[in-house]
């Protein structure tokens, strides 16, 4: 570089400094890098690269920094580590030090980093839809607040359960200043559990569940491995008893009674389809059966009949539950208080309180009530509300009666929204005071009593937004930065309850760890009201139509992340459908209605209706219709509505992202009308079974055995593969030999690994039309297979990724050596050498290679900030596939080398393994004796998929073991 250029660049840098703050500058630099790496088509675009002469303290270009924070994608508040590269967060991973989640992070958490770079975020405060300054926005809010006070109209805050102390304190300050009241409403509520505990234990509380303590577990429609309450924590706990051991008889037994096929049901040892109307009778029956076996002397609920199959299963379950007293647990996701009362009763008889679930230190999420929202809606409709501040909820979309809320909100003097991004409720707001994304803000969360989790910013705010706490404090007349406010709250409420001496020390340590646990005052488990079970009424069976089972799915939850393309493209663990919801029917109902997959049906109840494509779901309870909530959002943005993918053929039309079912969700029964049209589901997997058509033979791809057979012979279900003959001595791996073992007994299909892989490896998102053409780009997919009776099938999940074969069939066929074998057993894809013949993909027995059919969307410069600079963004026309996160291997090698030691294989954790809450994925070096990977290779349950072809995969699987106690 010559003198002049340096001068010019320095001048430019100085200019930049005038206009940008330091972090923003780094962000801009990262953006330039991303643009460079993404734009490498035929020739790189010409851009100036400015040297980062003044870096933030401690920052090293090219080295990632990790910040402990809390995932805010749902109320569960799992611990997360934000990976920050060159000033921008690019990845969220589980925080192993977090007391609840202990390392995993679910699909939505993994995806939430992309929400940060969502183009639909508000970029500044808005008044009447027009950008204004914060001063103007504050003035307008304060004027409205004063006017409300003057005119005698109320000030109301509509909020979800405050996530933590900071939010609660800010809310209180605001309420106190304006004499306002808060309506606390949670879009994903668990009111029935709260209410039932008020009835049975005299305390409206949500227990904390300890699945790790449960040896016998019965679930009623509680998708605790999918999206119920705190799935990462629960998966972690549940999985502890799921890997069978030869030495100790510790494997748990899990029965699930549910209407739809949930990921949890799919993982149960015994799954019984049960329509919602049978749920309360079933819970009553189970309670009575357990009462017989535990010598319950109190009053009992009346007898109720349940279908025969369920009754048999309940008897078996009762036997096992009673035998495991003190280590048994019954959970229910029902929104029916009576059912929950019965479940509490059963748990009480089983001695579960204080053992497998705990009221003494309850969970503190979702404490709100729907009644609060209804009362507020009534107040609004009556025109009594002068100012309504909405924080963290979106009732205009997901409320029990969204249209009524919308109409009522129009009568408020002023609606103020604190939403960080566009949503249906913010669309009604006169003033939008946009909050930060969690990765930009100081905040905290208190998911359970005594558990305090910190949210710390990983970057300076991208836009002119302000933390919600700051806004509330500003309007309360106590302006403070969120940071100071949080520190103050923690000093008073957390620090004081620890043994730490120095606050600064405590604070720094807490920030590094991400969360602290303090002694919460034990409230005791409470006294069980023995009369409660007898007060339960027997329900009348629903008259006609289908019983609705509208659920929160793993990908879409309640729809708050609907504009996140990672989640839209994530196949549902069970249906494998992407980009929209579908109406699932039991096979016998589908046959009766003449439904085939993709046939449009209209679901209607009480004036509301929705049109969805049908889906035939094996294992679903007859007489029910199941569909995921969270789709069909109108104000969430381009992705939620209609993703503009590569538009190739002008005749192709993109369809919107599913239908909104909230209006139907409170109906008792749904009328189903079969329409003439079709809308093919965009599924990533279309063949559901390992049983071949025509021959009826089952493919030996996913090996299973029962726990009982396993105890007699650990190799059961896993016959030794015939050793093939080879003329070739094979590769010699002198240094590392990378390998992976996946435990099929632990994999729940939750798909956290899939999203983690997308985020880590810059895997392109292709959109609905392309997924329909079987062109999803997932490097790692989770195959889901049913076996047995379609009315009540057994389900198994199998993560499938590049198997890094020793004798890789892809390597021999590439004419230009674009895929080659490394000396450490990696099958490496050389993108810039690939000419795209696709021969390798054809010759891959596992079909894990993915081809870039187009230049996939990287026009959104904001989203590009999430791209991992350690991984090339592939151009069109090249093949790509799982690399075993080779960038992580090389980072670990570099770190080891800098530290002057040799790398231990077990130090390398690929993105999929890191995210897995169940710990199903073990990665490491086979040559490192005693490492988990080397030990896994000796496991009697280990096998290679398609060993008979002789390709010698480095990824191996452990047989799935089902506990067939019954």
């Amino acid at each position, binding site marked *: 570089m010559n003198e002049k250029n340096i001068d010019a660049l320095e001048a430019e840098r100085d200019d930049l400094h005038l206009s940008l703050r330091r972090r923003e500058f780094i962000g801009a630099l990262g953006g330039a890098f991303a643009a460079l790496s993404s734009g490498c088509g035929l020739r790189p675009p010409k851009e100036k690269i400015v040297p980062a002469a003044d870096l933030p303290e401690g920052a090293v270009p090219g080295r990632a920094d990790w910040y402990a924070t809390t995932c805010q994608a749902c109320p569960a508040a799992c611990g997360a580590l934000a990976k920050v590269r060159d000033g921008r967060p690019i990845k969220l991973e589980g925080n192993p030090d977090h007391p609840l989640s202990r390392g995993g992070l679910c699909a939505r958490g993994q995806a939430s980093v992309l929400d940060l770079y969502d183009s639909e975020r508000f970029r500044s405060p808005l008044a009447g839809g027009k950008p204004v300054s914060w001063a103007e926005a504050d003035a307008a809010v304060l004027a409205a607040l004063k006017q409300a006070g003057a005119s005698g109209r109320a000030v109301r805050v509509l909020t979800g359960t405050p996530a933590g102390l900071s939010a609660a304190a800010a809310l209180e300050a605001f309420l106190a200043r304006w004499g306002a009241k808060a309506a606390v409403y949670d879009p994903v509520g668990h009111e029935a559990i709260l209410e039932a505990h008020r009835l049975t234990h005299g305390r409206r509380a949500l227990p904390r569940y300890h699945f790790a303590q449960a040896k016998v577990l019965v679930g009623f429609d509680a998708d605790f491995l999918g999206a119920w309450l705190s799935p990462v924590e629960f998966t972690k706990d549940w999985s502890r008893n799921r890997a069978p051991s030869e030495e100790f008889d510790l494997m748990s037994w899990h029965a699930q009674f549910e209407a739809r096929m949930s990921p949890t049901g799919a993982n149960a040892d015994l799954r019984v389809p049960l329509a919602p109307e049978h749920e309360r009778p079933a819970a009553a029956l189970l309670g009575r059966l357990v009462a017989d076996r535990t010598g319950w002397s109190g009053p009992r609920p009346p007898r109720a009949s349940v279908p025969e199959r369920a009754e048999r299963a309940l008897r078996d379950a009762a036997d096992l539950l009673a035998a495991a007293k003190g280590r048994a647990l019954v959970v229910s996701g029902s929104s029916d208080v009576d059912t929950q009362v019965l479940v509490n009763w059963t748990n009480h008889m089983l001695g579960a309180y204080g053992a497998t679930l705990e009221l003494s230190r309850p969970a503190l999420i979702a404490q709100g009530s729907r009644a609060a929202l209804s009362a507020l809606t009534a107040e609004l409709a009556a025109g009594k509300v002068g100012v309504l501040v909405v924080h963290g909820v979106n009732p205009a979309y997901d409320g029990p009666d969204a249209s009524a809320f919308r109409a009522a909100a129009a009568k408020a003097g002023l609606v103020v929204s604190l939403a960080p991004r566009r949503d249906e409720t913010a669309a009604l707001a006169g003033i939008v005071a946009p909050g930060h994304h969690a990765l930009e803000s100081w905040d905290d969360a208190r998911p359970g009593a005594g558990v305090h989790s910190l949210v710390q910013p990983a970057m300076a705010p991208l836009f002119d937004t302000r933390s919600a706490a700051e806004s509330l404090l500003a309007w309360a007349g106590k302006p403070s930065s969120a940071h100071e406010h949080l520190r103050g709250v923690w000093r008073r409420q957390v620090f004081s309850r620890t043994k730490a001496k120095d606050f600064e020390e405590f604070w720094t340590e807490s920030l590094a760890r991400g969360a602290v646990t303090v002694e919460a005052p034990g409230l005791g488990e409470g006294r069980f009201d023995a009369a409660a079970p007898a007060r339960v009424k027997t329900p009348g069976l629903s008259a006609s139509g289908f019983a609705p089972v509208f659920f929160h799915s793993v990908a879409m939850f309640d729809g708050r992340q609907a504009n996140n393309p990672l989640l839209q493209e994530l196949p549902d663990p069970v249906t494998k459908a992407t980009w929209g919801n579908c109406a699932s029917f039991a096979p016998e109902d589908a046959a009766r209605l003449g439904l085939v997959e993709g046939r449009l049906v209209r679901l209607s109840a009480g004036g509301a209706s929705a049109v969805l494509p049908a889906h035939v779901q094996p294992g679903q309870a007859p007489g029910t219709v199941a569909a995921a909530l969270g789709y069909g959002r109108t104000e969430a943005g381009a992705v939620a509505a209609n993703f503009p993918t590569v538009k190739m053929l002008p005749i192709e039309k993109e369809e919107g992202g599913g239908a909104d079912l909230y209006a139907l969700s409170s109906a008792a029964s749904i009328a189903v009308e079969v329409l003439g049209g079709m809308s093919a589901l965009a599924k990533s997997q279309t063949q559901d079974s390992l049983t071949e058509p025509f*021959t009826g033979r089952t493919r030996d*791809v996913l090996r299973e055995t029962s726990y009982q057979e396993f105890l007699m012979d650990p190799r059961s279900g896993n016959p030794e593969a015939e050793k093939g003959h080879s003329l070739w001595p094979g590769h010699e791996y002198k240094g590392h030999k990378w390998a992976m073992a996946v435990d099929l007994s632990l994999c729940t299909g939750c798909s956290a690994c899939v999203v983690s892989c997308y985020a880590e490896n810059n895997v392109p998102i292709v959109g609905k039309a392309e997924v329909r053409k079987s062109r999803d780009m997932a490097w790692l997919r989770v195959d889901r297979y049913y076996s047995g009776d379609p009315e009540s099938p057994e389900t198994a999940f199998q993560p499938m990724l590049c198997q890094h074969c020793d004798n890789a069939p892809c390597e*021999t066929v*590439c004419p230009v050596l674009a895929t080659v074998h490394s000396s450490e057993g990696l099958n490496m894809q050389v993108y810039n050498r690939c000419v*795209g013949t696709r*021969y390798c993909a054809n010759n891959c027995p596992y*079909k894990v290679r993915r081809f*870039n059919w187009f230049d996939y969307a990287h026009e959104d410069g904001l989203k590009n900030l999430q791209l991992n600079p350690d991984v090339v963004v592939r151009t069109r*026309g090249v093949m790509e596939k799982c690399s075993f996160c080779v960038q992580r291997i090389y980072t670990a090698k570099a770190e080891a080398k800098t530290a002057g030691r040799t790398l231990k294989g077990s130090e390398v954790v690929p993105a999929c393994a890191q995210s897995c809450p169940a710990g199903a994925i073990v990665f490491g070096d086979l040559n490192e004796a005693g490492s988990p990977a080397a030990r896994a290779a000796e496991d009697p349950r280990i096998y290679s998929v398609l060993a008979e072809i002789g390709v010698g995969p480095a990824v191996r699987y452990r047989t799935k073991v089902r506990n067939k106690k019954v």
Partner: protein
Amino acid sequence: MSATASALREPLIDGDKGYARVTEDVCRIAEGTPAPSWYAGLALSSAALLTGVVLVVHQIWTGIGVWGLNKTVGWSWDITNFVFWVGIGHAGTLISAILFLFRQRWRTSINRSAEAMTIFAVMCAGIFPLIHMGRPWLAYWVMPYPNPMGPLWVNFRSPLLWDVFAISTYFTISAVFWFVGLIPDLATMRDRASGLRKTVLSAASLGWDGSHRTWQHYEMVYLLLAGLATPLVVSVHTIVSFDFATSVIPGWHTTIFPPYFVCGAIFSGFAMVLTLMLVARKVVRLEEYITPRHIDAMCKVILLTSMIVGLAYATELFTSWYSANQYEQFAFLNRIRGPYRGYYATMVFCNAVVPQVFWSQRARRSIPLVFCVSLLVNVGMWMERFVIITTSIHRDYLPSSWAMYHPTYVEVGTFLGSFGLFFTAFLIFCRFLPMIAISEVKGVLDYAKPHHGGKHGH
């Protein structure tokens, strides 16, 4: 070379022609003004070619996603068309080289056109591996050439690389062989021409003087080239079949493929020669040169190769059953009963059933029937390649990845475009070069025979 004259054998050329007449008959096609039908044909075929060009440009500009391929089916129409056209390209060299070595003198009437057809078919074939690449602008990377990237070498283990060599060698030898065969005829035309045409033809005929020495050298070169080209006839499709045979995919991984592909190629090549010749002899009035005897002989080759192909189908089914390999058995059941069963049925019907009519001499001599059969054979052979390529990979080992493939208009149009290229090239060939090997045909005339009756007083 002495011709064997037999009273029992009908003459190969009808019309009791003299040498001058042969020269006149063949040259007039290239020298005169083309008939309106030629222009019509050229308009049609060049329109098809243009369609193909536009679609290929669209595809290269936008990405292969405009085709119907997916994560499971990485090749379909593209490689089907490639194998189809390579197969078509087999007949020419077989007719010129192998039949030449076997002294099958009936070949003389058709060998020139068949060779031209071969060259054009191989050109059509070559397009597909080129455009099927994700980054065709880097296609030269498949050639081992000195480069500054290491140097980076090609993968000699890859059958695709073998393809590159096999096809380019075949194309080169076929073109040289064709050109060498053309030299005496070009000289004949040169002697009749004037002006620019004469200049061009003079250069192209390489100073041919028709002397004894020249003829002697010529015959030796031709014989040697025939010897060189003969193994190529077998090797090209053998190597193309290796693309599949060396893979691990059930339905591809089959040792029977080399002979099966070669026979199939000859089968389809002869069918294409018949299709073209039956039209050409009518349009340019060469019925006396391409007589029912020629057609009869080609039908016999078709019948023979049809039976070999049919045997191959049966053997494949037997092998898959006898292998006791679950995946292998399923691959074949899926061909027969799966979603692409219509393609399989068409294939068997067109390739193994329809040609059986050629057991009857009446059928072999019925021009309309032969024409229909030749078309059906080509349809069937295209289906065969589609069945092998697509149905094997659309449902391979892991059911989770099973997928369906449907072509888009781009693939259909590109295939059409390849026909456009083929026919455009062939029509131009008819217009400017002798369609029939004048000098060779003269060698099979009655006049050329030593015991030719003295009727004409020679």
